[in-house]
């Protein structure tokens, strides 16, 4: 499919099949560790961490919601950076990394967009509030990664499709800073930062510890998913290239 890979070092394919195997194991290991950690967090959330005074039991969604949001942001940022690298260096690996990260962004974004409304239903009495900039920006971010995959398939020349998608990924990232500061700058229902605020974390110790554990779990899960997806993408492209007859000349 992508003849660029054949160009040698500059165009990727350093990670051949042998290497790919090792990387895949690493990915599975990381993902498994992530899942285990997240399971541990569920246990912590259920039996260890104290109930938050104001909101009661629902607040425990916090330990999934927030790390997922950060993992989503991280994935989006990686996708943006990898896309920029792809455009800048014309290195096929950049595109493969961007695809892997963008898919992770979709997954973690979906978690945020599921846990947030569930929490909101109880905390605010509504699943969603369209007047809320953060919610909207998060949804739009998720949409733009959907667009990322749509646009790739919709352009006749696959090379153009990849470039267009890369531009979409880069533009998407630009909204993250605004998303982060939106709750501080504008009066809103959504809580302000509790960890990354200038006065330092404003959380009780156990809560912070649980949050950090969960965060570690999500980061591992992200890295794991990212690696696995990257290896798969690499494999697919490699296979497509080699399965193609040498002189496919033109069509058919």
């Amino acid at each position, binding site marked *: 499919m992508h003849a660029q890979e054949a160009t040698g070092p500059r165009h990727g394919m350093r990670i051949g099949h042998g290497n790919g195997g090792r990387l895949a194991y690493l990915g599975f290991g990381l993902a498994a560790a992530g899942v285990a950690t997240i399971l541990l967090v569920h246990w912590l959330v259920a039996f260890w961490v104290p109930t938050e005074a104001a909101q009661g039991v629902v607040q425990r969604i916090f330990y999934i919601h927030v790390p997922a949001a950060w993992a989503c942001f991280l994935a989006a940022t990686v996708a943006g950076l990898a896309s920029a690298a792809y455009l800048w260096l014309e290195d096929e690996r950049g595109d493969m990394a961007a695809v892997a990260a963008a898919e992770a962004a979709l997954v973690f974004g979906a978690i945020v967009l599921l846990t947030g409304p569930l929490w909101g239903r109880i905390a605010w009495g509504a699943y969603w509030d369209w007047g809320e*900039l953060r919610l909207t*920006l998060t949804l739009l971010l998720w949409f733009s990664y959907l667009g990322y995959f749509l646009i790739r398939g919709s352009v006749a020349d696959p090379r153009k499709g990849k470039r*267009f998608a890369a*531009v979409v990924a880069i533009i998407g990232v630009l909204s993250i800073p605004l998303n982060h500061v939106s709750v501080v700058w504008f009066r809103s229902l959504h809580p302000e930062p509790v960890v990354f605020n200038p006065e330092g974390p404003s959380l009780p110790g156990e809560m912070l510890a649980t949050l950090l554990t969960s965060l570690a779990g999500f980061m591992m899960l992200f890295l794991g998913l990212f690696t696995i997806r990257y290896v798969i993408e690499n494999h697919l492209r490699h296979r497509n290239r080699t399965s193609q007859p040498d002189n496919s000349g033109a069509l058919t």
Partner: protein
Amino acid sequence: MTSLRWIGVIAWKDLRAEFRSGGRIAAMISFSVLACFLFSFSLGSLVAGRDVAAGLLWLTVLLASISGAGRTFDAEEEDGAFRHLLLSPVSRHAIFLGKAAANLVPVTLVAAFTLFALTLFFRIAAPGSVALHAAILLPGAIGLAAAGTLFGLISRHSSLGDSLLPALTFPALVPLVFFGATASSRVFLDRPWAEISGPARLLWGIAIGVVAVGALLFRYLTDD
């Protein structure tokens, strides 16, 4: 210097062709009139014009410019002219900026026209200072024109067409529209400059950012 000349001649060319055909600007403006009419029809009796005018103003300008953006590259593709433009020694930045500058004209016209139509339809007696409105709408129009140029090119090549535009432009445009509406509403409510200068500066920042990012990324959209 040559860059400026290039930008100028590209914008000149686009505007010349635009005014010869005229369809797009007319359609965009009648779109805005119709929107204002419908707004006043469905809201007029319920709310005070000054409270909603800012939101409706930005909404209309945004939708009109999105619907116009898809046509930015029509003349270029009519018989493959874009290919030759790209093959000329003009830098990609200049092409982008020239086309964005040409786009700015209809967007600005629509913005000015919508402002006028809204104050008329909603009978807003004192719509605030025109200069202040301009200071806010101008960066908004610049940002919209630039984003429209960038994404117009993408939609041109994608089989998904123009309708893909909103989904892609969202992250870039929502901040712009958000701050724009905030600032405009303060102008409508006759607040002092001190309260407006903050979002106005931010708007200029975003607009310049969109133009810069657009000029940077345009290269990658056009290179084969």
